[in-house]
């Protein structure tokens, strides 16, 4: 099979690294060749973070460039706009509708753009907008935003739900398994 490319984008501290860890492990178990790439260091301090996940029969580059992503999982609305150019024609952005102001907006040097998702929709991008924060809170923790977004992705993909549940159990700390499973279920059915 051809390589499928997924970008996970968000703000440092939002839990995107756990999402890529879970997804990577799941895809290896499913028998794919997998590459996951992320940058550690300064980007963890509230900066824009991006993780690339690629899988298929044989994956070479760990990076995803303009027009190459099949899916973008965005933990924050502005980040969806920032990385939208990486999306393939006909690709899908799954986006948490939460807004987190970056420092230039906080200091008043820039404005948080409005109408981001409408604009992308008008350009033919498939948008799955979800209030992942509320769903995660409903499941028991704001930290489960990552699992909610993964659940939205899982709906569009052929891997059985049971495999996702196993991957959750293998990735998160034991005391959070039930909460995360609930977040997955709520996200999947939202």
């Amino acid at each position, binding site marked *: 099979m051809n390589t499928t490319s997924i970008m996970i984008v968000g703000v440092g501290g939002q839990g995107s690294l756990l999402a890529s860890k879970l997804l990577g492990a799941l895809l290896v178990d499913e028998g794919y060749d997998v*590459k996951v*790439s992320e*940058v*550690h260091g300064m*980007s963890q301090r509230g900066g824009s973070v991006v993780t690339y996940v690629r899988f298929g029969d044989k994956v070479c580059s760990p990076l995803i460039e303009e027009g190459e992503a099949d899916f973008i999982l965005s933990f924050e609305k502005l980040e969806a706009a*920032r990385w939208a150019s990486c999306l393939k024609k006909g690709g899908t952005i799954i986006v948490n509708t939460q807004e987190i102001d970056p420092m230039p907006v*906080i200091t008043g040097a820039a404005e948080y753009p409005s109408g981001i998702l409408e604009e992308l929709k008008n350009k033919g991008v498939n948008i799955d907008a979800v209030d992942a924060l509320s769903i995660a809170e409903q499941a028991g923790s704001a930290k489960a935003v990552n699992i909610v977004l993964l659940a939205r992705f899982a709906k569009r993909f052929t891997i059985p739900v049971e495999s996702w549940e196993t991957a959750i159990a293998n990735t998160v700390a034991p005391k959070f398994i039930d909460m995360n499973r609930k977040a997955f279920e709520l996200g999947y059915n939202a």
Partner: protein
Amino acid sequence: MKKLMIGNEAVAEGLYEGGIGFISSYPGTPSTEITEFLAKRDDLHSEWAPNEKVAMEAAFGASLAGVRSACAMKHVGLNVSADPLFTMSYTGISAGLVVCVADDPAMHSSQNEQDSRHYAIAAKLPMLEPSDSQEALEFSKAAFELSEKYDTPVLLRMCTRVSHSQSIVETSERVVPERKTYVKNSPKYVMMPGYAKKKHPLVEARTAKLAELAEDCPFNRIEWGGLETGIITSGTSYQYVKEVFGDSVSVLKIGMPNPLPSRLIKEFAAHVKTLYVIEELDPVIEDHCRKLGLSPIGKEKFSPIGEFSQKTIAQAFGLPAKPSVSADSAAPARPPVMCSGCPHRGMFYVLAKNKITVLGDIGCYTLGAQAPLDSVDYTLCMGASVSGIHGFVTASEKDAAGKTVAIIGDSTFMHSGVTGLINIAYNGSNSTVIILDNSITGMTGHQQNPTTGYNIKGDPAGKVDLEALCRSIGIRRVRVADPYDLKQCEDILKEELAAEEPSVIISRRPCVLLKYVKTRPPLVVDTDKCRACKKCMKLGCPSISMKDGKAHIDKTLCVGCEVCGQLCPFEAIGKEETK
């Protein structure tokens, strides 16, 4: 067993399987995880050293004692440890010694993008360069064999994309070779001129032998494809070349960038119509090709600046861009910021308010250079704040001492700030040094250091008493300030700047991200009292913004440090229950 691993974990696994018994390192992105993964193992010694030079020399000592050893560092760390590196090339080793160095093209978390391959050439040492995690594992393991067979330290060159990309590796059992018995051998290990002169010819002969090995070794290989285009490449660039061209072009993949295989390169070049060299950073392979009389297309198409990707390569070959959409409205940048409740913020605010010249250093606090604090004047390298202020204050007009500070973190001070402080005391400049003691090595992701009282395993360890250390150096004025108390910080700062002798201010409060730090409930703004003077905005705290013409505190981010409340002239910021 098949497992997904980042390159750094794969290096750790390769060293482990290869029987490593000792690793000493100083953390540095993107190399840190190599040592962290090895620290999870209990059948070897792992440690954080105060700096890379100490780490490398410790690893050398362990090799002499007969145990396979390693050290790991970022590219600029190799500058710090260059001194032992060059002479270890002469002495050679006893048990295998691997020096892991991770370059950072595009400077994701670095102050320059130097190319470590120059060190291999300059120090006449073999270097291996993996292009994914499986190779990282294999090359690390093979490096021990190479090291012992050729009596040399071996450099293992990583880069950000190999260090921090996960790919599948096949692991195997650890095999620990028998410890080598220590035998005194002064002509081999005592590098005074008489002995060193005899060693240099041996180094040259070793390089010649390694060059022979390079011609026919598993690290370098030709993948024949179409003969129109032949590409010599290495490291992560190899992956991008394969992504763009698959098997349609011929590729000479270099896994051993020093010494380079001259005959193999010439043979490859002879078979292909157009020869390219695709390598990140400097034209090391390209220059070698030119020495061989070849004329490859290299840096004129593939920049020495930044990192590559499949897009860089496709563009250079004139391949069409992939169709994409983008949002019309430009997304405002989201730079990294000091965290809510970061103890560095208070001190930086006081420095900015008093318009102090700040000679900065390497760590999270480099972020103090950004708006709105905008209060760092220079950042050069580890320790340069303390050494630099001495020269600055000594050479400046008289009043500079009263308006200038050096600012350095606890770990960076241990790394190479302390020698600068000795110079201040010894040569008597009226310098003021602020040590931001947040009880951890922050930027690289919370590593212990000699001031924290814990070792790499989290066990209690020797703890440097910073106050006593500074006093013993000869600094009589050593003060401690709480950066959550702005008035105290400002008073102490003014007193020490006015003092006619060198002083040290220790700004002490643990990193707010440390698990044991108890945060307080978020603060709230009383919108009736807030007059939108924006004084609180001068802190650059990510929790504070203006909403509907009034200051607003994000309750999911605020940790209740109460620094903003000290700035509010209208007492509009406070705890929830009082409002």
